[in-house]
């Protein structure tokens, strides 16, 4: 008989004392190849109030589309100094910010007939996100995708999502620098972000 996975519990309001030692808001140090980007945003609750006590964890492939993990057996280079992990907290205005390189494309599972739509063998560039806050009894999981990305149209995960809600997963270009993106997380409400059951 198999065991059962341990139950999640909320991080509560005081997670900073335990998690701050591993905050990583710059995922790609100097010398890591790729297109430099900055992503900023806010975490909002059902009333549109900002959430000043959220912690986000980020997990992404490098610019070649390879994860720094032994189960990524693709014949692509790893980059010294790039682990693909980030951890950031919202500030007292509910805002977060991180800098990284734009991830490359990673493989999709073998074509799964999603309503007959032809899905690409590669996923569109994306960053995997876990969100924890006081009030969340377990984490929420979502993804950040990129605007003006042709691969979004045939992406494996986006294709699982109601087309009217896909835009919640796609960052917006900030006015000004092309490298700056904005992406808000709405925990509940009409413009609620899509969260995945993984």
């Amino acid at each position, binding site marked *: 008989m198999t*065991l059962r996975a*341990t139950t999640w519990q909320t991080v509560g309001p005081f997670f900073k004392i335990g998690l701050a030692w591993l905050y990583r808001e710059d995922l790609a140090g100097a010398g890591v190849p790729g297109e430099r980007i900055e992503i900023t945003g806010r975490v909002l609750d059902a009333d549109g109030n900002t959430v000043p006590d959220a912690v986000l964890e980020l997990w992404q492939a490098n610019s070649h589309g390879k994860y720094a993990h032994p189960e990524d057996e693709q014949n692509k280079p790893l980059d010294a100094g790039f682990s693909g992990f980030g951890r950031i907290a919202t500030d007292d205005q509910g805002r977060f910010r991180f800098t990284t390189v734009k991830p490359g494309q990673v*493989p999709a599972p073998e074509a799964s007939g999603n309503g007959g739509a032809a899905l690409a063998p590669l996923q569109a560039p*994306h960053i995997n996100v876990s969100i924890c806050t*006081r009030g969340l*009894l377990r984490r929420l999981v979502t993804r950040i995708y990129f605007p003006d990305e042709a691969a979004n149209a045939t992406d494996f995960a986006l294709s699982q999502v109601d087309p009217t809600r896909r835009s919640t997963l796609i960052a917006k270009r900030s006015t000004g620098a092309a490298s700056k993106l904005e992406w808000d997380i709405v*925990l509940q409400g009409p413009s609620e972000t899509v969260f995945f059951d993984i």
Partner: protein
Amino acid sequence: MAPLRPYRRYHSGTQPDYLHSPYVSSQKRAPSQRLVHLPHTISEVTGPVFGDELIDVKAFDLTKQHSAEPIGERIIVSGRVIDEDGRTLPRTLVEIWQANSAGRYAHAIDQHDAPLDPNFTGCGHTITDAEGRYRFVTIKPGAYPWQNHYNAWRAAHIHISVFGPAFATRLITQMYFPGDPLMENDPIFKCTADEDARNRLISLFDLKTTMPLHALGYQFDIVMSGRDATPFEEHHGAHK
């Protein structure tokens, strides 16, 4: 390439729902839409790998982070990180944080009128050994009141964060202490429907790991999602 090996989904009822109204903070923060089922891809079956260079080898002992010892009952918290099939998970990062023995966190927003302890910060980390074992030395956290409802008290608990081998296995939970009468009225402890599942959050007093004349031992094993028995490719035999 080897076939993708997805992780098993949580067993029904063993995880809290997002909305648990007795926990008031969940009411405005729980999503209202059904989560979108996502079959695992390479993004979910990989995850951050932390090496020894990250680990402060002294960070497992929360009683030795300051010039003097913290006040409180010294305890050892130890156990194994395993998966649902009983496989040990070596070299995985475990982080903890907790209140001091008076029930006060060393955090600026904790307004509980209980003393801070200048010799206790309440955080630590370690990495599991080759057999998946971890061990912390700390002091027993105190219970504390909170604003959730009239006369609300949190049962004594230690927050525990574990990564496991993949993004899909990430876990943050709380460990409780046997016999604590506050658990019964704590909506956070009670938020999981399955009684057996929530009772597994209670550590076991353990004489074996007690250090004579020094500290009591509590055992707490952490179970991460196992691998799905059905390889993903079997769903798509036509492509083979």
